[in-house]
């Protein structure tokens, strides 16, 4: 039967990247091995950390200090997380939805676009470049992994973060890819407001019932 429940985890404090990675993998493993029926949604922020996928080109790292770099099992090129950027991880069993990663990526874009539209920010998809764009600048990035149709990782939206950090890398491997953030458009939006809207959108789009641990 269709499983529409998910544990929602939204820590107030800024989280360590590696720790949350392990947490995600645990929920993914549990779902795969059917130890648990709970899908998992994590919404929070990370300390400055650069992440690369298994297929990433290391040249895009430019001159980042290696101790901040994490190699993870998602698709896409290098990206960067930092306080002020909302990070969302979704451990969903796509068997409950549609076994189609393309559908899933488009769904995540749809959620981000709807969220930004709530704040009256005009944004769109860009064919061939997964993520959400405000004109030519990237405001949200997506990178996912998938095993037995259970997803890993998710997306990040720049809300009020120091975009300087992106100049240390070639984000997503796209040369001259400029980043932007919500605060560039709306001065008074807080990360908490974005968090609440994202939460609602995810709940609506994936028909989820959130439960606490």
């Amino acid at each position, binding site marked *: *039967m*269709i499983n529409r429940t998910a544990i929602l985890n939204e820590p107030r404090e800024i989280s360590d990247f590696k720790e949350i990675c392990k947490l995600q993998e645990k929920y993914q493993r549990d779902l795969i091995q059917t130890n648990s029926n709970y899908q998992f949604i994590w919404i929070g922020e990370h300390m400055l950390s650069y992440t690369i*996928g*298994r*297929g990433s080109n290391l040249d895009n790292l430019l001159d980042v200090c290696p101790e901040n770099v994490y190699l993870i*099992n*998602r*698709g*896409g090129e290098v990206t960067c997380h930092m306080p002020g950027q909302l990070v969302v991880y979704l451990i969903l069993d796509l*068997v*409950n*939805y*549609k*076994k*189609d*990663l*393309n*559908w*899933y*990526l488009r769904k995540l874009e749809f959620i981000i676009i709807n969220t930004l539209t709530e704040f009256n920010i005009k944004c769109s998809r860009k064919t061939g470049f*997964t*993520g959400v764009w405000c004109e030519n600048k990237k405001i949200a990035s*997506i*990178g*996912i*992994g*998938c*095993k*037995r149709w259970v997803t890993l990782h998710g997306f990040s939206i720049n809300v009020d973060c120091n975009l300087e950090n992106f100049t240390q890398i070639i984000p997503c491997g796209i040369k001259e890819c400029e980043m932007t953030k919500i605060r560039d458009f709306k001065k008074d939006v807080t990360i908490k407001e974005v968090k609440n809207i994202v939460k609602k959108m995810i709940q609506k789009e994936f*028909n989820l019932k959130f439960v606490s641990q």
Partner: protein
Amino acid sequence: MTEGKIVEWLKNPGDKVERGESVLVVESDKADMDVESFQDGYLAAVLMPAGSTAPVGETIGLIVESQEEIAGIQEKHNTKTISQEEKVHNDGLQNHASSEKTNNENVKNISKTPNVSKVEKQKATVQVKTEINAALANNSSRVIASPKAKKIASQMGVDLSKLQGSGPNGRIQADDVLSAKGQPTAIPWIGEGNSSVGLNNIQPINKQISSDIGNSFGSPGETVKFNTLQKAVNSNMESSLNVPCFRVGYSIQTDKLDAFYKTVKQNGVTMTALLVKAVAKTLKNHPQVNSCFTTDGISYPETVNIAVAVAMEDGGLITPVLKNPCQTDLFELSREWKDLVKRSRLKQLEPDEYSTGTFTLSNLGMFGVDRFDAILPPGTGAILAIAASKPTVVGNENGSISVKKVMQVNLTADHRVIYGADGASFLKDLASLIENSPESLIA
């Protein structure tokens, strides 16, 4: 997705792989996907190294059942192990791999690049030794088999060259492969609409039905509890007892419809989609038949949404909905329908995909029934029961007689909102559309 990049091989040639174990990681767009082996065995050869990009369906590696076979395969493919320096000569290796592929077109058993939207494509199947031999022996007589038969054969390890096909010109059908393996052949279930209304294939169907036992959920002497879906159907059926229904029937000639179906079938059009389209188009001109009873009065839905009953193999039935079929072309509608059927069997439908019908179709034509009447689902005003189309002797207006394909349809309607004349004129127009201009159903 048309191609995928091989990010990493998690196994090296010679390694043992277990069913369900990840063998490699493929990336497409922003998604990494672990590709697993669907069989126990040994990874014998890697034909596409990490870092290369392969089109969907390309052979990227070979898995064998036993360790002894590895050496043979590696010799045949000259790949041995893919070492670092070989990886550098990426181009050469890819050419090599593709030439190997052409030599081995008959080898079925190969792990393919996953198609992210089509799971079935990524099954890595095991190469059974006899199969390899058959393939390497380079059987020059071409095996003619349907795509489905080929797929099932490769999954079940059936040698197609040893089979006798029952299809046209001895073509091997999926059922031939299934029966060769001693598996039950599939009886067409409700609503798939793959069979033509005009039961051309009435013989084989009869044969299957007579040799097969009817559906049952329990053994003699048992009482089996209703499952959730059966309970839901029961409550719907009981609530229909409070609805004053009447029935009205019509005989529709389908020679033209069958001829049109033949021309569009190759483009993936299903009979269900054709019937849904015809009903939706007619309903547009008969909004009364699309209405339903509410305590406040007659409710007219904003759109025409056609629900089609699909029986579930473990009991109960579900009514996936084709929303606003008038707005969708016939080909898209057929794809939507196939997707809905597939997902309803897997119990993956969203509530709005099975509960938003404004009019229901129930088709038992594929079983050859000549007429039946359906029970009205709650929240709707009418349901149409569709029987098989059969050659029938028809009296013509000029006194002559001829044989025409005739299909009986039977409308069940809630008399509080739909009257006899409404139902009758709806059926008259539906018949006229199907009998005279089935080509107009395309858009």
